[in-house]
């Protein structure tokens, strides 16, 4: 068994190979479709990495004479693809600037949730017994709780900071990782290669890390992509309700919330950031479906 990354690389390279059941004409089309989604995600990532450097204008620059301009209009400053807001700020520049925090919160919460779920799931599945019951009961109880409401309460009590948002969001997703990983670990624990590794005297840690984890990495990845979408939607919800990240920070959820007041006169302010967020989550969902189909398993 090689490094855990071997499985991942093989998996991703397979993911981009055409799917067997699709007719040749559609094959090219679908691969092209997939590339468009990947391209979109890369662009969003680039926006997040560069911050407002790629934005056409300074996102905070106000312009009194160019307030609430509709998309595709010009001001004395130049062309505004998506129009301007109530203070004359360029909407597209704000959306590009908002990519950073939106993606940062989504990715960090997603990674924490995944790490917690994977570790607890592996422990539960590998050792069984009391530990297993404890972890599974905890995840069941938490799934049965209205966690989004608990999150609202949590953020109201402790204050709506980025740190608190990143603390509470993983609690929404770790149970699904724990359930998947536990089931997979249980399945793999009795596999011959695992028994062989145990027989040669490998430690629990090394069996889990180099034998079991690589074999379920593809499934974990599919779930990670799906849950990233969920976390981003949850963050947007919290921001929209006013208990998430606070201005002057910018996330897409906050931009939607800010635009809501101008819905009747400037629909683009609330709708466009939602389109950007929706396309991001849609791209993640499309990719996860494709990956699930490639690995021959529904995630």
């Amino acid at each position, binding site marked *: 068994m090689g490094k855990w990354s071997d499985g991942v690389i093989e998996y991703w390279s397979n993911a981009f190979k055409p799917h067997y059941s699709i007719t040749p004409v559609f094959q090219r089309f679908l691969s092209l479709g997939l590339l468009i989604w990947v391209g979109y995600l890369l662009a969003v990532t680039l926006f997040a990495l560069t911050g407002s450097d790629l934005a056409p204008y300074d996102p905070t620059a106000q312009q009194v004479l160019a307030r609430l301009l509709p998309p595709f209009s010009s001001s004395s400053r130049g062309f505004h693809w998506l129009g301007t807001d109530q203070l004359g700020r360029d909407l597209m520049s704000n959306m590009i600037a908002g990519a950073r925090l939106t993606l940062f919160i989504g990715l960090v919460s997603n990674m924490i949730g995944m790490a917690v779920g994977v570790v607890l799931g592996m422990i539960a599945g590998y050792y069984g017994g009391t530990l297993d019951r404890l972890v599974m009961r905890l995840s069941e109880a938490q799934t049965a709780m209205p966690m989004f*409401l608990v999150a609202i309460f949590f953020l109201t009590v402790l204050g709506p900071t980025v740190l608190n948002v990143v603390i509470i969001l993983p609690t929404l997703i770790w149970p699904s990782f724990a359930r998947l990983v536990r089931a997979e670990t249980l399945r793999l624990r009795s596999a011959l290669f695992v028994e062989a590794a145990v027989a040669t005297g490998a430690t629990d840690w090394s069996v889990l890390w180099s034998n079991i984890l690589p074999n379920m990495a593809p499934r974990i990845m599919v779930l990670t992509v799906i849950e990233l979408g969920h976390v981003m939607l949850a963050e947007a919800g919290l921001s929209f309700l006013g208990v998430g990240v606070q201005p002057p920070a910018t996330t897409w959820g906050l931009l*939607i919330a800010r635009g809501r007041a101008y819905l009747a006169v400037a629909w683009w302010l609330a709708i466009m950031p939602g389109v950007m967020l929706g396309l991001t989550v849609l791209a993640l969902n499309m990719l996860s479906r494709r990956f699930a189909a490639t690995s021959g398993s529904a995630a």
Partner: protein
Amino acid sequence: MNHPSLSAFLLTRLRDGLIVLFLVTLVIFVLGHVIGDPAGLMAPVDASEQEIARLRRQLGLDRPFTEQFATYFGSLLRGDFGQSLWQDRPALTVVLEALPATVLLTLVGLVFAGLGGSTLGVLAGARPESALDRSANFLSITALSVPNFWLGLLLIVIFAVNLGALPTSGFASWQSLILPAGALAIIHGARVFQLVRSATFEEMTKPYTLVARSKGLPERLILWKHILRNTAVTMMTTIGWEYVRMMGGAAFAIEVVFAWPGIGQLMINAASRQDFPVLQAAVIIAGAFVVVTNGVVDLLYRVLDARIRAA
């Protein structure tokens, strides 16, 4: 498979449900009383250190944790959720007043989500890769990829701002229900669609379908009689789960968008006014709904599935 009797099952579910509710109150208590600082929040802005300390003693906040929680839990059991700081009425009354509006909105949304999602799901699952299947599938993935409150805003822009056809906020007539319930129905119907579609598709490949087809039963009969009967359990449980999602917070953002006078709107108002008693009561009441719905779904699952019932 060894299944316990129905009464034993009910008792287990009841116990588990009560444990979850207890955990919800424990989490709320730890967050509100131990990590948070109720005295500091309730005291006037210009209160001195000593005044806050006195308030702390009055509220019993200097007591040991277990004692505080026992007192708190005891008063919850008596239906005492504290006074609303903002309305100066019992918090439970404030929440219960908002409850009917939420129940109305979510039930109407659920009915349409269930009907629409199931019908389309059966039709699409019966003809995999057809134009209907592809388009409905893509639309449902899209619906599940957008924030639900954003969909609400989009409906407002289309139907209220541009067409001027429907009311957008408050609860004036049955027409006020159309847009918020519609937004809920689209998002939750999309998930019902996904699950019913794959369940139908799975049943289509089973031997009994092949037998029915080979003995010449019309396709319509196979689909709406035999297959539907076998997917009914999936349908019911899926719809139940969607209700759990709605009451677990999904419907609340929609309430805020449409200024619907339900629990979600109340929670956000209470949060912005730091009215913790109301916020706590709302979370616990919504939590009770989630727990009860979960139990009902499990029960339905047992009662509907003859294979489990007979065992």
